[in-house]
């Protein structure tokens, strides 16, 4: 391997590389959750869906040798979890947050149970596109190895942003999310719309899980997610239910997460626990800066149980 010295350039490069590598699960889970929450439901179970998706993708990829089949299976598993959440929540008096927490534990537990035999074997990875091929610096090449899922996630964010405003489906979703009564007056069935929205959200979270186990870090272990699904749900509120905001927030978290290891690698070794807390401190600061006691959260769907 080429021993190119890049020294302090390693830090911005690691943040860039980290933003691209680490952010993808955040992007998918938060976009999925944005769709679900726009319909007026919260699905906290996406952490469980993420872990189950990671396990399913890995298991199917090991058994069939095809990461794409694994990805499809993960999306399908996520869809099932989402539809299950959506179906239960349609009954009267059911609290979507409580069901979400139950599904989070259920999804992780089920993934651990079925995932036992797959901790040891190695699965084929999803392919990456070498955008850094123009550079002869190996570090730059490595940082710019961009997985196709990241690109799909970016495109999806733009598409959803456009679709929420400009399509009939987007309009229906927003109406249901803002007022069930208005939706019913329009002849829409809010439960069906929410069922579909939660299902799609779950499928996207499953894809996020597939990225974790099939690309980065690229193996199935029970600690693979370490709470990323929950963080992504929080990102949606942070991003004010805006898909482009979700994408930006996911990048921010990915980059900030890479800061700690990168600083240590160039010799800034004091206080690394503080650097590791950087993403959370950043969130707190932005939340405080943008909050206001006199108005409700801008962009919050009116039917959301946390804002009602």
């Amino acid at each position: 391997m080429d021993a190119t010295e890049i020294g302090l350039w390693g830090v911005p490069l690691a943040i860039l590389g980290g933003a691209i590598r680490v952010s993808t699960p955040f992007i998918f889970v938060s976009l999925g959750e944005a769709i679900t929450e726009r319909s007026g439901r919260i699905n906290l179970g996406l952490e469980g869906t993420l872990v189950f998706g990671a396990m399913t993708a890995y298991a199917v990829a090991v058994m069939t040798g095809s990461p794409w089949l694994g990805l499809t299976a993960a999306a399908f598993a996520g869809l099932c979890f989402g539809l299950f959440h959506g179906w239960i929540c349609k009954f009267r008096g059911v609290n979507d947050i409580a069901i979400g927490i139950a599904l989070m534990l259920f999804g992780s537990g089920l993934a651990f149970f079925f995932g036992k035999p797959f901790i040891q074997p190695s699965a084929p990875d999803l392919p990456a596109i070498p955008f850094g091929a123009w550079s002869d610096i190996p570090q730059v090449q490595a940082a710019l190895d961009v997985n196709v899922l990241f690109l799909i996630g970016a495109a999806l964010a733009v598409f959803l942003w456009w679709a929420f405003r400009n399509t009939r489906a987007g309009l229906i979703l927003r109406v249901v999310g803002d007022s069930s009564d208005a939706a019913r007056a329009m002849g829409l069935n809010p439960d069906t719309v929410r069922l579909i929205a939660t299902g799609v959200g779950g499928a996207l979270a499953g894809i996020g899980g597939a990225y974790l186990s099939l690309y980065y870090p690229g193996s199935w272990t029970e600690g693979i997610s370490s709470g990323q699904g929950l963080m992504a749900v929080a990102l949606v509120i942070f991003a004010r239910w805006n898909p482009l905001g979700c994408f930006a927030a996911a990048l921010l978290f990915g980059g900030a997460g890479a800061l700690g290891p990168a600083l240590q690698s160039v010799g800034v070794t004091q206080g690394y626990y503080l650097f590791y807390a950087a993403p959370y401190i950043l969130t707190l600061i932005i939340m405080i800066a943008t909050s206001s006691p006199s108005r409700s959260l801008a962009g919050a769907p009116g039917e959301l149980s946390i804002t009602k």
Partner: protein
Amino acid sequence: MIDRFMLSRRQLLKTSAAGAAFGLASASFPISRALAAAATVGFIYVGPKDDYGYNQAHAEGAAALKGIDGINIVEEENVPETVDVQKTMESMINLDGASLIFPTSFGYFDPHMLAMCAKFPDVQFRHCGGMWNKDKHPMNAGSYFGYIGMGQYLNGVVAGHTSKTKKLGFVAAKPIPQVLLNINSFLLGARSVDPTITCQVIFTGEWSLAVKEAEATNALVDQGIDVVTCHVDSPKVVVETAAGRGAFVCGYHANQSPLAPEKYLTGAEWNWAKVYKMFVDDLVAGKPLPNFTRGGLADGFVKMSPLGPAVSEAARKQFDATLAEMTKGGFSVIKGPLKSNKGGVVATEGQAFAETAIELESMDYLVEGVVGSTA
């Protein structure tokens, strides 16, 4: 102490008798089996049993006991270092009749295992690590550990020969003495080959954080580091990420060579089967169990992975010579003159700490040549 132990054995027999009676009463156990299970040994793991790492090493040790007559093994994995582990220990004692328990993770000791020691004075507890102290802790507790730093020194020897950039990397979980000793040993092993070699350490802050470990490995390779090792619970992510970036790796805890056959140099592995057999033999023979158990390469507590295909002839020679010297016993990794990376004196000229030196179990420094900080 022996008297106390005899008492506890009597209690133990009473418990097993009760267990046998229960077995008869429920009529589901044949008599022979109930009597044959003279002792039940419990193992508690913090992660999955097949993690290519710390827990797998312990579970392989536990599995080696399964053939022993009269010994019944109960295991529980994924037990967090919280009050959960107390519940696990209680149920192993009350429901399974365990008379000897191995809580294998560092954080199980205080306050969880100590609380159980007080609650069940007749049950023996042995904790993996260096925490037990005869002045402070009960006699039905104890600790066992291996001098795996020696293995990391050997890793360092091979890494020193293999590295072209003369920069090594270490992904570490937390700055506790055992981890620091491993980092220092790895570097000193490499410096026995070339005294200009440095080792960059990155602490992730937790025993198992897959994404952060991958980021840390990438950051190390970005800095031109070409041999990486680690001390985290499951080295799988580090090994795969480093090999994926083209760096060589030295393993830890268990043999990870199937994950990266071309890039895997060697690895420092536990051989807990040996240690657990010792304890269980004592238990079966009715002898008191030792409270303080340590051993290294010479005692078979620690072993090395077979050398990989990328290891050069020179490296192999020095590896074999160093290993031979270590198995004779009395080998010192930390020997003077040696400074810490903050400039403090660690060992003066002529001063040497053998692997058995108890001072090493309270290590709080990184030696000169390690780039990193303990806080």
